């Protein structure tokens, strides 16, 4: 395989005495969907946070297109084209969907008012509606606070926000957890579209059929370490479950 788009080598992360990551490695190529699976508490969310700048690993290396990078904040990661859907969504519930989509990337008006910081709300709302329509996010109103939407709608907005801005990698931490059948299919379609645009997608999910249907590859995390890697076409449900529970070990776990 050529140089992976994003690669993590032996990341270690402690929370006090809890060792959430114990030398976890990972890679994703451009135009590839990789699922990261593992039992509750395996360290998946922590891993994603380290790779998206929300947390800093205690040791280990992160490489983007072969070059070591230091992700000191989510802003740094975003400026490198890495976007994330966090498990806790990280949306502002009192702001409307358009404001959330453009949070941190607001469009200002032209002229002197823009220079004073005045926002072009209309333009942001218009573009947001377009993006939501394109990505299949159904909202009755664009001007209600996002906290007043259903859990699934909120999740769809968070997914839309990440894929609209990503140019290299998108991390999605359980993006379909609260979704109904139709919305779930839409998100999976979005994931495929994003992949076809040449972006690397990393999906965390506990839904094995979903994992097998959308991923190109699957990496398994257990107790803070990668224990197995599969090509989705070759892996069976039993393999995945075996790797997650520790019945099947491919990689060195000394």
């Amino acid at each position, binding site marked *: 395989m050529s140089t992976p788009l994003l690669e993590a080598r032996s990341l270690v992360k402690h929370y006090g005495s809890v060792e959430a990551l114990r030398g976890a490695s990972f890679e994703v190529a451009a135009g590839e969907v990789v699922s990261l699976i593992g039992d509750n508490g395996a360290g998946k969310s922590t891993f994603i946070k380290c790779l998206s700048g929300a947390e800093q690993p205690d040791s280990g290396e992160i490489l983007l297109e072969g070059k070591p990078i230091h992700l000191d904040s989510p802003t740094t990661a975003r400026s490198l084209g890495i976007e994330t859907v966090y498990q806790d969504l990280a949306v*502002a519930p*009192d*702001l409307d969907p358009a404001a959330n989509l453009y949070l*941190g990337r607001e469009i200002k008006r032209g002229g002197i008012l823009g220079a004073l910081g*005045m926002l072009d709300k209309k333009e942001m709302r218009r573009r947001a509606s377009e993006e939501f329509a394109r990505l299949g996010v159904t909202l009755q109103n664009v001007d209600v606070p996002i906290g007043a939407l259903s859990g699934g709608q909120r999740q769809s907005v968070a997914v839309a926000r990440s894929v609209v801005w990503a140019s290299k990698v998108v991390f999605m931490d359980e993006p379909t957890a609260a979704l109904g059948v139709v919305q779930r299919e839409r998100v999976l379609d979005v994931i495929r579209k994003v992949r076809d645009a040449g972006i690397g997608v990393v999906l965390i999910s506990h839904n094995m059929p979903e994992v097998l249907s959308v991923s190109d590859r699957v990496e398994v995390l257990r107790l803070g370490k990668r224990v197995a890697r599969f090509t989705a076409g070759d892996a069976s449900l039993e393999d995945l479950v075996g790797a997650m529970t520790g019945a099947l070990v491919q990689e060195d776990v000394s």
Partner: protein
Amino acid sequence: MTATTDSAPPQAEKRPLARRLAGANTLWIALVLLALIVVFAIIDPSGILNVTNLQYLLIETSVLLVLSVGMTFVIVTSGIDLSVGTVLVFSGVASALTMNALSGGDSTNAGWGVIAVGGVVAVGSGALWGVVNGLLIAKARIPALIVTLGSFGAALGAAELLTGGSDVRSVPTALGKALGSGTSFGGIPNMVLLAAVVAAIGAWLLATTRFGRYTYAIGSNEVAAQRTGVGVTRHLVLVYALSGLLSGLAGFMSLAYFTTTTLTSHSTDNLNAIAGTVLGGTSLFGGVGSVIGTVIGVFIPAVLNKGFVIIGVSPFWQPIAVAIVLVAAVWFDQARRRARNQR
């Protein structure tokens, strides 16, 4: 592609104006204010609608309004600023002492150059207190309640140290005449005009600019704001600096109006500003609020006060009535939030 057209999601729309208004707290609180005025006007038609009474009502509320505009920004970030009243006093003292020093000890006849310096000192010293508050809250991560409770005491202590505990009574006459008791446009007090300008700029800043949007975002979900690249620490320092700056301006206005430093009469300004802000629909939980709401909210206690005097009810009822309205407003806000979060 035709097959997918009918299943394509409908374009999201803005809600009709009437429904958006009905959902806004501001409308309800405006109706409460209107109802109060109507009731007092019916009981005594010549009382509250009398021009002199109205002028006094507005002037007496203008200093509090300036404090409350700053308070609105702070509370929208889900913070609190208990120091506004004593920072007001400190800034007034610093300003008065500076003007006196520049005029050889007594600034009563000082000119506009000295007065301008006094204004800058008032606003600047207020902003400085605000920056200190902001740094302790945003950088050192000490709860806003504790930090501003500390500066509430410290600012008053510092003001009393500077003055030896007695009010500075020499204030430029020109300042008192122009800002304190002057009027423009056929009878509108300059104090009121200044407060209105501050409120208008504050409303614009909060509702339409990126600064305002970040203020809401931080109050709504600080982690989300930080993860999307909002400079949370810097923004919080700026918000507390703004509150301090406006406290300084209010100190200058108070100095102009009373032509003395009024050391002892601002110990409950902080609570009045919080009450006005919260009455106006700004949520103590952050993320929700407006300056327009605050303008209305600040006038509810003021109208109750004047109204009780006019209709001959003991003014001691005013704090009780305000307390009831305030608790009801917060209860309403909480119920609304609970309903939303249960989804």
